[in-house]
C-alpha cells in the first residue's frame, strides 16, 4: 500500500447548498485519506456525494449555491479550503487532474485534441508551442492513440467514445499530476472498452506513481481497479478499507446489502438483497445514523446517536454502532 504519509487528507468535510430556499446537505462529514501510487475507490449511489467530494478537492463547487463548506482538505499537509481561487488554479491540472464520465461532453467540440492538451501544458509547464506539441504527441502515444499525429489534429467528434476517453486521460496526465480524480470514467462505455480504459488507468498509475480517486456507482468496477475503497451513503463515508477486505469481510450493513444486491451469474436463482425504502432526503439532518431508516439491523441507539467513523480492525474503518456484531440476512 501507499507511503506512510497520505498525499491528501479529507477530514469532516461538510458541504451544504441552498436549494429552492431550503438547506440541502450534500456532505455530512466525509473523512478520506488518499495516498500516492494507490487507487482509492469511492463507491455510492447517485446523489450520495461522490462528485461533490471530488469537486471539493479541486475547489470547483458551484459557488452561488454553496451555503456551507467546513472541515479540512489538506494536500501534502497544506490546507486547500482556505486557499484563494488563483492558488487553487495552480494545483488544478498540474498537481491534481480530473477525468469525467462523458468525454463527449467534457471535451470542447471547437478545438482539436492537440490544442486541448497543449493549452494545459503551456499553462502549467511553461513550454513553448512546439515543445508543448511534441509533448502532446508523446502523451497521445502513451494513452494508446498512436504517435502519427492524426489524433493530435482531430476534433473530438471525429473520435470514438473510447478514443475520446483516452484523449481526456492524455489531457489529465499532461502535466504529470501527483493525483488523478476519475469521476465514473467508464460508465458511459461498453464493457469491452471499459476493460481497456481500466487497464490503461492502472498502467498509468503504476508508471507515474499517481494517487487516484476512482469514483463509481459500480462495485464490480471498483473491485477491478481499486486498492482501497470508501463507501459513501447520503454524504457520509460509512466504510473504508482495502478492496480485499471490503469484498471479503464487509462491516457496515449498507455495504453488505449492496454486495448482496449485485446480480451475479454465479449466484443465479438466489434472491437479490434489495435495500428497502428511499435514500435519505438531502434536507433531512437526522441525529442518528444516516442509514438507520433503511437498515434491517437498526436499533434504538442507531436513531439517537450518529456512529463515529472509527477503525474497528487494523486498516478497516466503519461508521456503525454494531459493526463488530456478527449478523446475517
Amino acid at each position, binding site marked *: 500500500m501507499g507511503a506512510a504519509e497520505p498525499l491528501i487528507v479529507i477530514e469532516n468535510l461538510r458541504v451544504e447548498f441552498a436549494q429552492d430556499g431550503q438547506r440541502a446537505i450534500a456532505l455530512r462529514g466525509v473523512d478520506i485519506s488518499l495516498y500516492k501510487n494507490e487507487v482509492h475507490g469511492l463507491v455510492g449511489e447517485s446523489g450520495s456525494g461522490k462528485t461533490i467530494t471530488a469537486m471539493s478537492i479541486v475547489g470547483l463547487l458551484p459557488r452561488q449555491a454553496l451555503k456551507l463548506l467546513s472541515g479540512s482538505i489538506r494536500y501534502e499537509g497544506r490546507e486547500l479550503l482556505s486557499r484563494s481561487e488563483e492558488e487553487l488554479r495552480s494545483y488544478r491540472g498540474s498537481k491534481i487532474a480530473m477525468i469525467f464520465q462523458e468525454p463527449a461532453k467534457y471535451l470542447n467540440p471547437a478545438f482539436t485534441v492537440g490544442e486541448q492538451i497543449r493549452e494545459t501544458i503551456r499553462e502549467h509547464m511553461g513550454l513553448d508551442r512546439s515543445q508543448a506539441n511534441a509533448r502532446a504527441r508523446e502523451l497521445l502515444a502513451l494513452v494508446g492513440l498512436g504517435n502519427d499525429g492524426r489524433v493530435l489534429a482531430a476534433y473530438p467528434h471525429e473520435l470514438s467514445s473510447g478514443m475520446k476517453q483516452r484523449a481526456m486521460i492524455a489531457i489529465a496526465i499532461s502535466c504529470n499530476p501527483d493525483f488523478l480524480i476519475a469521476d465514473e470514467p467508464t460508465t458511459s462505455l461498453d464493457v469491452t472498452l471499459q*476493460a481497456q480504459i481500466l487497464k490503461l488507468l492502472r498502467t498509468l498509475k503504476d508508471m507515474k506513481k499517481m494517487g487516484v480517486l476512482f469514483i463509481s456507482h459500480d462495485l464490480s468496477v471498483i473491485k477491478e481497479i481499486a486498492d482501497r475503497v470508501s463507501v459513501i451513503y447520503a454524504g457520509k463515508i460509512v466504510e473504508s478499507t482495502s478492496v480485499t477486505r471490503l469484498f471479503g469481510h464487509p462491516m457496515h450493513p449498507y455495504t453488505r446489502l449492496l454486495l448482496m444486491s449485485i446480480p451475479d451469474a454465479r449466484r443465479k436463482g438466489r434472491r437479490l438483497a434489495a435495500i428497502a425504502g428511499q435514500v435519505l432526503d438531502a434536507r433531512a439532518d437526522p441525529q442518528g445514523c444516516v442509514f438507520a431508516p433503511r437498515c434491517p439491523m437498526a436499533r434504538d441507539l442507531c436513531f439517537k446517536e450518529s456512529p463515529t467513523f472509527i477503525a474497528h480492525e487494523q486498516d478497516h474503518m466503519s461508521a456503525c454502532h454494531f459493526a463488530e456484531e456478527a449478523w446475517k440476512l
Partner: protein
Amino acid sequence: MEALIQCRNVVKVHRGRGLDGVTRGFKAVDDVSFFIEKSGNFGLVGESGCGKTTLARAILYLDPPTSGKVFFDGVELGGLRPRQLRAFRRRMQIVFQDPHSSLDPRMTVYDSLSEGLINIGMERAARTKKINRLLDLVGISSAQSSRFPHEFSTGQRQRIVIARALTMDPEFLVLDEPVSNLDVSIQAQVINLLLDIKEELKLTYLFISHDINLVAYVCDRIAVMYRGKIVEEASTEELFSNPKNEYTRTLLASVPGGGFGRSGATAADIVRDESIKHTARHVVSDTTSRTGNEPDMREEPR
C-alpha cells in the same frame, strides 16, 4: 416445448444518407433466427449499436422487419392486417430503459394506466380494480395513483411503467435495459419484481441488456448479438461454461470485478481493436444479396 416467439431470418435495413450524400442501406439486424419458448426467459446481450433494440422493435412489429418472418404463438405477424396486428400487440408489451421519457408527465399514474383499458372498453369500476391490483403487484400504493410521474423516484417510475405494460394482460414482455438507469440497490428491487411477476403471471420474457452478468442472472437462455448478427446462442450454463464464439469470450472476460472464463484471466488482459465501434454498422454491398426479397442495396446517388 412450444415456441411463443419465433424469428426466421429477420433482417432490418436502416436507410441513411452518409456524409458524402449517398444513400445506403445498413443492416442493423442481419439474418437473425431464434425462438423463445412459452414462459421462457430469453436474454439478448450485446454492446451499444449492435442492433438489439432494432431487433426487439422488429419482433413487436413496431418497425416491421425488412425481410424475414416473425411468428407469435404460431401466427405470422407479417401476414396480418393492421386491425388483427393490434389485437396481437396487446399480448406483447415493451418496457424501456428510461422511465422518465416513457411516462407522460402531464398524466396521473391512474390515467396512464387506464389509457389502454379505456381503449378496449373496460368499465370504470373494473378498471380501477385492475389498476389498483397491478400497482399493488409492483409495490406502489394505490393511494398514490392520482399522483404525477415527477412525484416518484426513478425506481418507482420504472415500477409504474411495468404495471402499465401489464394492464393488457400480455403474455410476452420485452424488457429493453429495464434497470440500466437505476441505482444498484433499486436495480435489485426491480429485478426481484420482474422475476416475481414472471412467476406469478406466467409471462415470457425477452430481456435485453449490455450487461452479460445481469442477463445471465435473469435468463435461462442467452443470445449474444454482435454487429447485427447473433453470434452465439445457448443455455446460460452452457454459454458460461463453454463459450464457443470469440466475441462471447471477450464479453465474458470484460465483466469487471473478475470476469468469466479464460481461467484466471481478467478483463484487463484483453485488448481489442478500437475500430470495432466505428464499423459496428457495416455497409452492405450489392454483392451480398442472397434472397429474392432482399432490397436492392446499390448506392443511390442523390
